[in-house]
């Protein structure tokens, strides 16, 4: 596609529920990133994929967070047993090369109630 597509745009989850957030990167982009953006803050790094390999997951806040990109294109960020502090916008970004500027998607706004 022309840009990075994320779905759903909005997700309301009850505390303890599992959620899955999807990212469709720009076709051909090797690098894929997930960031978390709290209200009024800048995005914070969660994890990085190069093709299907997850090369860095140091930013994932807990073992309840899991990301995958099995075929090197679409990626899913899964959050198990959601907590209120997980409420944020989850941004996906992709780039052709690691060192080039990212293209971000519009994000998924997750609200845990």
């Amino acid at each position, binding site marked *: 596609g022309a840009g990075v597509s994320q779905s759903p745009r909005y997700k309301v989850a009850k505390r303890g529920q599992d959620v899955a957030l999807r990212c469709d990167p720009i076709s051909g982009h090797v690098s894929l990133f997930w960031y978390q953006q709290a209200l*009024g*803050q800048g995005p914070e790094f969660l994890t990085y994929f190069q093709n299907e390999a997850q090369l860095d997951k140091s930013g994932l806040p807990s073992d309840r967070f899991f990301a995958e990109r099995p075929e090197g294109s679409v990626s899913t960020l899964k959050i198990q047993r959601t907590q209120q502090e997980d409420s944020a916008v989850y941004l996906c*970004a992709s780039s052709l090369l690691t*060192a080039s*500027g990212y293209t971000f998607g519009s*994000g998924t706004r997750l609200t845990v109630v």
Partner: protein
Amino acid sequence: GESVGLHLPTLSVQEGDNSIINCAYSNSASDYFIWYKQESGKGPQFIIDIRSNMDKRQGQRVTVLLNKTVKHLSLQIAATQPGDSAVYFCAETGPGTYKYIFGTGTRLKVLA
């Protein structure tokens, strides 16, 4: 930890005036800097970038200045338009890394 910060959380300018958004970074090893614009409900949009071997780079209506001596980055927008209203983030990254460290953002309000 290392961080990128901004001096002004909100900046209001008259339409047609020039805007200057500032950013201080703390990691002297950072070698690549980016400015992003984020409108409500959208993801950050790339505006302009600069590498540490430069001190100025110009785009269409935008200029980024880098002062490595005082670890300061600025974004200048010429003839500010209503469509420029958004939150602006600076971000940095270091050699051999891919993680961007973002500041908290500056909200730019353009007054008619």
